[in-house]
């Protein structure tokens, strides 16, 4: 024990010594040859209200950055900054710009730093940011309910019909689950990488999406198999619900954010699209449950876990949430989905062994394809 402590101390002391020497002597600073400081500024959030434009920015400069002037639509404008002063590395500040913005039109912002560098941001469609009034929040909560919980419950209603087809119905349902999850995995990673682009470059949010997905799936696999056996039946249904739940949190956030920036023009139509899109999730969650283990209480909790997160997502999507955290949420969601793909796939292959049904049957091919096609087709409605 003493030996291992002593041997650890030495390399740690070496590292500490190296850090101390570099920080005090700065032996390689001459290589920069007096180059001007590197600057980067990311606009993380825009809020529009009766007092003007409010932008939350994150600096990523090699030295603290000073926002000296602000242009709106090619004109210099008064503004105030909170907190005042230079913005340090990866720190944020809010810029309040009294500006008579025009509803439904585009506005262009340029933030000029003390070095004269300009950082641009466009507001594609200006609309007053909702989420500040009780009725707005209630409306968004209702949207989350219809997008998340209700379609999952409707999806459960397919269960008796599928089971009435016997073994091939069950196989179809499981294959459909895998197809759907495959679609969601690709979709969630894509969403995560898209939002990661909006985060400050040095946060490497794209890497975070991949790594958090990997770590989440490994962690959930370990939790699921802590008894030494892979989860099946109701336990597996809960894991599917968790994976889909994290995905729906992200979907809720996206809906809330879209409302906030006025990108959703045909709100009712889109909520319907999302709802249809998510009915398949109910089918997927219920697929591994044996008929005898089915109970209304179980289905209620599964629906809450899978669909419920869409509600807080929709309510908070319009708030100032850093793209970094949103990207992390998508990464965790992707990891949770990957885990259930592995486990549902396991169930599928074990069934072949146990009751000698070929896993590549017509029912499973149709199910898998249906899962992907249904998700893809309903996604059109949501994306348009």
């Amino acid at each position, binding site marked *: 024990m003493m030996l291992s402590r002593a041997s650890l101390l030495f390399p740690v002391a070496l590292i500490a010594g190296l850090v101390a020497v570099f920080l005090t002597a700065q032996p390689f600073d001459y290589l920069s040859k007096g180059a001007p400081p590197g600057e980067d500024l990311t606009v993380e959030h825009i809020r529009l209200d009766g007092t003007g434009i409010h932008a939350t920015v994150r600096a990523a400069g090699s030295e603290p950055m000073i926002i000296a002037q602000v*242009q709106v639509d090619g004109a210099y404008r008064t503004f105030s900054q909170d907190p005042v002063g230079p913005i340090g590395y990866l720190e944020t500040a809010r810029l309040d710009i009294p500006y008579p*913005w025009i509803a439904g039109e585009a506005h262009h912002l340029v933030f000029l730093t003390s070095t004269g560098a300009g950082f641009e941001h466009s507001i594609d469609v200006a609309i007053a940011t909702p989420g500040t009034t009780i009725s707005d929040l209630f409306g968004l909560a209702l949207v989350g309910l219809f997008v998340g919980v209700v379609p999952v419950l409707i999806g459960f209603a397919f269960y008796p019909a599928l089971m009435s087809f016997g073994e091939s119905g069950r196989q179809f349902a499981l294959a459909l689950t895998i197809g759907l999850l495959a679609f969601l995995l690709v979709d969630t990673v894509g969403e995560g990488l898209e939002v990661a682009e909006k985060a400050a470059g040095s946060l490497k949010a794209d890497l975070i999406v991949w790594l958090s997905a990997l770590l989440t799936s490994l962690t959930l696999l370990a939790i699921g198999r802590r008894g030494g056996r892979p989860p099946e039946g109701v336990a597996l249904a809960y894991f599917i619900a968790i994976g889909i739940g994290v995905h729906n949190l992200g979907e809720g956030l996206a809906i809330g954010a879209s409302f906030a920036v006025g990108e959703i023009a045909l709100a009712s139509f889109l909520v319907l699209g999302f709802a249809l899109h998510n009915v398949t999730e109910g089918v997927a969650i219920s697929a591994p449950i044996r008929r005898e283990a089915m109970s209304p209480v179980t289905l209620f909790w599964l629906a809450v876990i899978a669909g419920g997160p869409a509600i807080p997502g929709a309510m908070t999507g319009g708030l100032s949430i850093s793209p970094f955290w949103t990207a992390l949420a998508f990464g965790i969601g992707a990891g949770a989905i990957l885990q259930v793909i592995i486990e549902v796939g396991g169930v599928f292959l074990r069934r072949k062994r146990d009751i000698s049904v070929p896993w590549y049957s017509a029912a499973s091919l149709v199910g898998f394809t249906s899962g992907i096609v249904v998700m893809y087709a309903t996604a059109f409605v949501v994306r348009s």
Partner: protein
Amino acid sequence: MKPAAADGQTSHAHGGGNRLVGTIDHDRNGFDPHDILADWDTGEVSQLADGRRLREYQIVASDMEVEIAPGILFPAWVYNGRIPGPTLRATEGDLIRIRFSNAGSHPHTMHFHGIHPASMDGVPGAGQVGPGEDFTYEFSAEPFGCHLYHCHSLPLKRHIHKGLYGAFIVDPDSARHADQEAVARSRLLGTPENARWQEFVMVMNGFDTNFDDENEFYAVNSIAFAYFDKPIRIERSRPVRIYLVNVTEFDAINSFHLHANFFDYYDHGTTLTPTLKTVDTIIQCQGQRGIVEFSFADHEPGLYMFHAHQSEFAELGWMAQFEVV
């Protein structure tokens, strides 16, 4: 600045608000835009053997960081520590001798818009001066008018827009213009007729602070909104003459528009009769210049704006006003 009350959730009206935030340290810059307005550099005057007047000037080019807008430091190149460079003023026929030394980090020249021999043109190969070197330009002040000088080293755009330019005013010699002697004397610095005029030099320029070949700031005499925030005071009883020069880089033209009044315009200032009468807006391409003359004698006192009538330039800094008293 007091924002007006917001009118609900769809559109919002605020009074004004088109301005810069903060103040400039003119002492740190070493020049104040209000001092530049009527700061004539008439050189060191002496008499040549043949009776001709000699004017000698000292000009130094150097690298200098200039706060061109509050909080924004521009890595400029300057003549005699200011942008625009000194306003060189002479009389038609004077011999001009300019000892130009380069304390900067790149080769520079002084290219005058005027009449001179090829060897004095101030271009690469004729009067270009390397860092630490010097050169003496010598030529006759011809023709009378409102002119300019600028660096003609390459790359040209960069050498001009970094700040190497200034006005060069040649007053008419009234003895040579007997038929229009009164007009000529009113233009000739040092005469009582000239003293009653309120004369200003205004060099329309811009700054591309991020070097993307588009200007972030526009102004007259470099400092955006300087004459808007602190208006130029003029007396109603005395006429106004503006020596207007356009050196704006990257944009095809610049313009001058006066509110609530009209003016006479002398393109290039090389005539004693106006080339345009009774106008309130003129345009100039880069290098073009002219003389603007007007009077507020019959107006009520108050603030009268003048600015580029490209709204884009105006809102990016080329906005100013006279305080008529």
